């Protein structure tokens, strides 16, 4: 006679299954809330700090004096306004310019075989292997030599280059997920190769494209290292200006927080607008 042996149940699973269905749900909910809090808390603290007067930032949990003076003060500084505009313009331009290249380069990597795609792929791969930090110094010399140091172009071009390297792969992934026979059908239906790309492949890639655009924009908006090294007084960038609230005379956390909250605004708008695309894009 054969005996049936009980398979040992892992302890954690046992615990979870021991809970009533309602209990499991509550447990899951609690875990979700805890995780959200973990990420939301720093933002909450930042907003809190931005609303406190300078002397109270180290005692945020004590006292009840709140003020909007910090915002008034940073918005009164011309450099902050200029930095806000510069960061916005450069993020937007970098996104538009790099996507123009990324889309075609991703498409090429996905659809074509041969020497050019292979070399291009190799080049991107090599660039991605090199630590990001090590590009900064050479770029500083290059931008100086080209006479574009501390200009829009001086920051834009390196950003576009980085985006192309990082996002061509992701774009290739998007196009890999789109059936090429759709383009063949379009070519038979009267489109040229370019026409098939523009009218059939590209519209199908819009969710991915939007996700990439948002990632691109946020990346440049938040980027610090390039901005710090490749710009000076002429082209203030928000992240650098923010860092400059820490200086030899002390740390103006309240002003820095106020600027950071200001910086949060556009990023938040962009993210809320494109949230659904980012999630769809990340699934690929």
């Amino acid at each position, binding site marked *: 006679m054969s005996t049936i042996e009980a398979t040992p149940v892992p302890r954690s699973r046992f615990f979870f299954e021991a809970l009533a269905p309602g209990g499991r749900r509550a447990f899951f909910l609690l875990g979700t809330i805890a995780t959200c809090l973990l990420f939301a808390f720093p933002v909450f603290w930042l907003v809190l700090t931005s609303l406190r007067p300078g002397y109270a930032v180290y005692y945020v949990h004590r006292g009840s004096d709140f003020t909007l003076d910090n915002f008034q003060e940073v918005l009164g500084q011309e450099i902050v306004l200029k930095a806000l505009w510069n960061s916005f313009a450069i993020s937007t331009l970098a996104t538009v310019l790099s996507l123009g290249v990324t889309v075609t380069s991703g498409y090429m990597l996905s659809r074509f075989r041969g020497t050019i795609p292979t070399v291009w792929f190799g080049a991107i791969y090599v660039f991605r292997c090199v630590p990001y930090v090590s590009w900064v110094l050479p770029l500083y010399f290059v931008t100086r030599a080209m006479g574009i140091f501390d200009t829009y172009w001086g920051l834009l071009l390196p950003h576009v280059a980085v985006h192309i390297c990082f996002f061509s792969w992701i774009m290739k992934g998007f196009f890999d997920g789109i*059936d090429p*026979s*759709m383009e*063949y*059908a*379009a*070519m*038979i*239906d*009267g*489109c*040229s190769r370019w*026409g098939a790309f523009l009218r*059939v492949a590209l*519209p*199908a890639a*819009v969710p991915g494209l939007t996700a990439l655009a948002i990632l691109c924009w946020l990346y440049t908006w938040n980027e610090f290292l390039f901005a710090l090294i490749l710009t000076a007084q002429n082209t203030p960038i928000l992240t650098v200006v923010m860092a400059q609230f820490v200086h030899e005379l002390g740390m103006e956390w309240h002003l820095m927080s106020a600027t950071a909250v200001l910086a949060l605004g556009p990023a938040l708008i962009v993210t809320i607008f494109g949230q659904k695309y980012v999630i769809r894009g990340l699934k690929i």
Partner: protein
Amino acid sequence: MAEVVLTNVRKTYGAVVAVEDLSLAIADHEFVVFVGPSGCGKSTTLRMIAGLEDTTRGTISIGNRVVNGLQPKDRDIAMVFQNYALYQHMSVYDNLAFGLRNRRVAAAQIDAAVRNAARILSIEPLLERRPRQLSGGQQQRVALGRCIVRNPKVFLFDEPLSNLDAQLRAQMRLEIKELRQRVPTTSVFVTHDQVEAMTLGDRIVVMKDGLMQQVGSPLELYRRPVNRFVASFIGSPAMNFIDVNVTAAPTGFRLRADGVDLELPQRRFAGLGAHAGRAVTIGVRPQHLRLGGAGEVEHVGLSGKVMVTEQLGDEQVLAVRIGAGDIRVAGVDPELSLATGTRIDVAVPMDNLHLFDTASGAAIR
């Protein structure tokens, strides 16, 4: 008029030869099916006709015009793909209208063509939907519709039924046949399914390893396969093969192998003369074997042991062990109860015997 003529077409990818020296003339309004196992070059041939692949050598002409250098859009063809290839971001209506809009046809004319195609294929209620809201069969109908509206010179089908389940496939096969009668157009159909090839084609081209093996009507291929490959590929269940040795006998030839001993008359199998003393392969279709001894004239008999029976309801298919190999016998009375190990005799009319050179596989006539 739109005959498609392939002349010495060759296609290589680096060192790999995909299609070798293919010449074929497809008549106007003819329906030709390319069939073969995967990697035999059939899809490549179709894509060369479509202009999606260049030819390495040779010429392709459609309607007396060499199209080698022409873009797919300029060849006046339409193609149905295995995975339908519908434009996902467009409605069914726009999918159907896309080709005509590209050719700057007047809107009223497009509308008429789209509605006409939708009526022929019974997809009128679906015109406003998106492709991903449709079932596989409906999507394939839309893909067919996309071809019809354009009224092209040639229809190309690249395994259009492979993604459908068996029942739907049978239904779509009938619909394609019906469509042919309504919209007679020169068609090239690629499939790996010999049933589709047999049922749809006016002529069938059997391919293997980039080489055209045989071209002919379904019945020609079934009755007179030129080699062992064609014989095994066409027909279901597949043809039985038995390797035997040929020796000359007083009135003809003696074919012997383990469990097989046949005598064939000289006058009917003169071709065997050149093979005396060598190995040949006998081919017999399972449907041509009948239970019972070779009592009748012009029949030969085999005997073996029943190994497995497959009950299909209207018939049984037996696996019978002869010597070391098994052969299949189809069309056996389903009421007949045959235990494993039962010794049985089967017979086949000599007319239905196929003989192949074992080494080359070529048919011996």
